[in-house]
C-alpha cells in the first residue's frame, strides 16, 4: 500500500530551482531517511509533498483536502515553535485537532491517543510542566509526541533528533522504527548518517536538486556518493550489533 507517491516534483523558489523532477514512493512499514548536504532541498521536498508550498508535479498528499491530508500525514517542522506557555499535555493533545469536527470537544479517544504519545516519548512525568520552560531537547520531544498523537499512517519529520542528547536520539529513532514495524511509515530528514544507517530501512539521497540514490543504507552510502554529495569518506561495516557508519575525513 502506498502512503505517499511523488512524481516529478519540481520546485522553483524566487526563480531558483530547488528541486527538479523528484519522484518517490513510500509504502507501509518504512522508516525512510532523507539525507543530503545543507541546501540539498530536504525540507523543500517534504513541504512540497504536503502541499505547503507550490510545486510542479504530483503529490498524493498535496492533492487531498486539507483535513483528509491531516489525517493521512503528520508534519513536524524543523522550527520548534511553541508560542504560548501551555502545559505538555495540552500541547500534545493539539495533535488531535484534525480528528475533531467543528465545535467537537476533545473526547476520550483523543485523550487516550495523547496518553499513548506521552508514554511513548517518556513524557508522562513532565505532563503538567509548561512547555516553554523546558529545555530545548525536552521541547523537541514534546513536539514529536504531538506528531505521534495525530496517529497518522505517515509521519514527515524535519530533523527531529537535532539537538537531542545521544540517548534520546537513539530512543527517538527506535520509536520511529517501532512505528514502522506497526505498519506506519516515517520520512525523516537527518544529518547523522550513523543513526540513519543504523535505524532507517531505506535512505533517499538528494543532491544537485535531484534524487541521486534511493535504497537500503548500504546501497546509498557508497564511497562515491559520500564523496560527491557530502565531500567526506567514511568507514561502513555490518557488525553483529548492526551497521556501523563513521565519517572519517573531508575529501576534495
Amino acid at each position: 500500500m502506498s502512503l505517499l507517491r511523488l512524481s516529478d516534483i519540481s520546485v522553483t523558489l524566487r526563480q531558483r530551482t530547488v528541486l527538479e523532477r523528484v519522484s518517490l514512493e513510500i509504502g507501509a512499514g518504512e522508516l525512510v531517511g532523507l539525507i543530503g548536504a545543507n541546501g540539498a532541498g530536504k525540507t523543500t521536498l517534504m513541504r512540497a509533498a504536503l502541499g505547503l508550498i507550490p510545486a510542479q508535479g504530483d503529490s498524493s498528499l498535496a492533492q487531498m483536502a486539507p483535513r483528509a491530508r491531516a489525517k493521512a500525514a503528520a508534519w513536524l517542522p524543523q522550527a520548534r515553535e511553541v508560542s504560548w506557555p501551555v502545559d505538555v499535555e495540552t500541547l500534545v493533545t493539539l495533535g488531535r485537532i484534525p480528528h475533531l469536527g467543528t465545535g467537537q470537544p476533545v473526547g476520550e479517544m483523543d485523550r487516550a491517543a495523547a496518553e499513548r504519545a506521552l508514554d511513548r516519548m517518556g513524557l508522562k512525568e513532565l505532563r503538567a510542566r509548561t512547555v516553554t520552560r523546558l529545555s530545548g531537547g525536552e521541547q523537541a520531544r514534546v513536539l514529536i509526541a504531538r506528531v505521534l498523537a495525530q496517529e497518522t499512517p505517515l509521519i514527515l519529520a524535519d530533523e527531529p533528533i537535532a539537538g537531542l542528547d545521544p540517548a534520546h536520539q537513539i530512543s527517538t529513532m527506535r520509536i520511529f522504527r517501532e512505528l514502522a514495524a506497526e505498519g506506519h511509515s516515517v520520512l525523516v530528514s537527518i544529518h547523522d548518517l550513523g543513526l540513519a544507517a543504523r535505524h532507517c530501512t531505506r535512505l533517499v539521497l538528494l543532491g544537485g536538486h535531484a534524487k541521486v540514490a534511493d535504497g537500503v543504507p548500504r546501497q546509498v552510502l557508497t564511497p562515491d556518493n559520500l564523496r560527491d554529495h557530502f565531500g567526506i569518506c567514511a568507514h561502513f561495516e555490518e557488525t553483529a550489533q548492526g551497521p556501523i557508519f563513521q565519517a572519517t575525513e573531508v575529501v576534495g
Partner: protein
Amino acid sequence: MRLLGFGLTGLVVLLALISLVLGPAAIGPAESLYALFTDTGTPLTLVMREIRLPRMVLALGIGASLGLSGAAMQGYLRNPLADPGLIGVSASAALGAVLAIQTGIAAHFAFGLPLCALAGAVVGVSLVMLLAGPRGSSLTLILAGIAISSLAAAFTSLVLNLSPNPFAANEIVFWMMGSLSDRSMSHVWLALPLMVVGWALLGSLGRSLDALTLGEDAAEAMGIGLRRVRWQVVLGTAAAVGAATAVAGAIGFVGLVVPHILRPLVGARPGALLWASALGGAAMLLASDVAVRVVLPSGDLKLGVVTALVGAPLFLHLIYRTRREMA
C-alpha cells in the same frame, strides 16, 4: 475552567447591575430597577431605558468586542502586545467614523457610521498585518502600530479641524480617548449587529488559534486553512472594533490587559482565551465606566483615561519582559 466561566459571568452581571443603578441623578437601586422594567410614566423610566440601559449594554458589548479582538489578534500574530488600540485599528476605525460624520454619510444612511468605521478598521488591520508579517516580531508590530495610529490620528484631527462646525475640533479628544456618556438605544442598534458579526467571526477561531501555537507550517499541515483564518481575523476584528469605535471612540488597552490577566487562568490556550477575554473585556469596560462616573459624577471623564491608567503600566511591564526579543 468552568469555575472561571462562572466567576467571570458573575462579575459581568454584578458590574452590569452597578452600572444600571449608578448615575449623576441619585436614585435608589431598587427604585431605578423597578422603573427599568415597569413603565412608571415618570422621567425615571425614561432615564433608565434611554440613558442607563444603552450605556450598560454598550459598555458590555464594546468591552467584549475589544477583549475578544485583542485575544484573537494576539493568538493569530502570536504576540502578547497585539491590542486593537495599540496597533492602530481603533484609531483607523475612528478616522472612518469621523469621515462618515463629516461627509454626512452617517446622517443620510443609518448604518453609514459603523460601516465606515469598519472600513477604516479593515485598512488598519490589513496594514498592521502587512507590515508586521506573518509572525510579527514585537518590534515591527509596535512600530507599525505607532505609524498607523499617528497617521490615523493626524487625519482625524485634520478632518475635524477643517470642519465648518465649531464643535468638531473639540471632538478630537473623544475619538482618541472614548466615552460612553449620553449614548442612546439608537447607538446600541447601530453598533450591536456589526459587533455580533465580529463576535461570530472571531469566536469560531478557537481551534485554528490553538493550532497556530505550533507555528503556521504545523497548523496548516493539521488542516487549518491559514488564508481563511487571516480573513476571519481581519474582518472579525474590524467589525467588532469598528462598531465599538463608531459609537464610543477609540478605547485602548482593554484588548491588552484582559488577555494578559486571563492567559494563565486558561492554561495559555489561545482558543479558550477567546471567550474568557470577551467576558473579561466586558467586565473591565463596565468597571471602567463605573469608575469614570464615581470619580467625576457630572463630568465627562474619558473612558480611555481609566483604561490607559490600568493598561499603560502593564504594557511597560510586557515590553520589559519581551525586550530581549525586541533587541
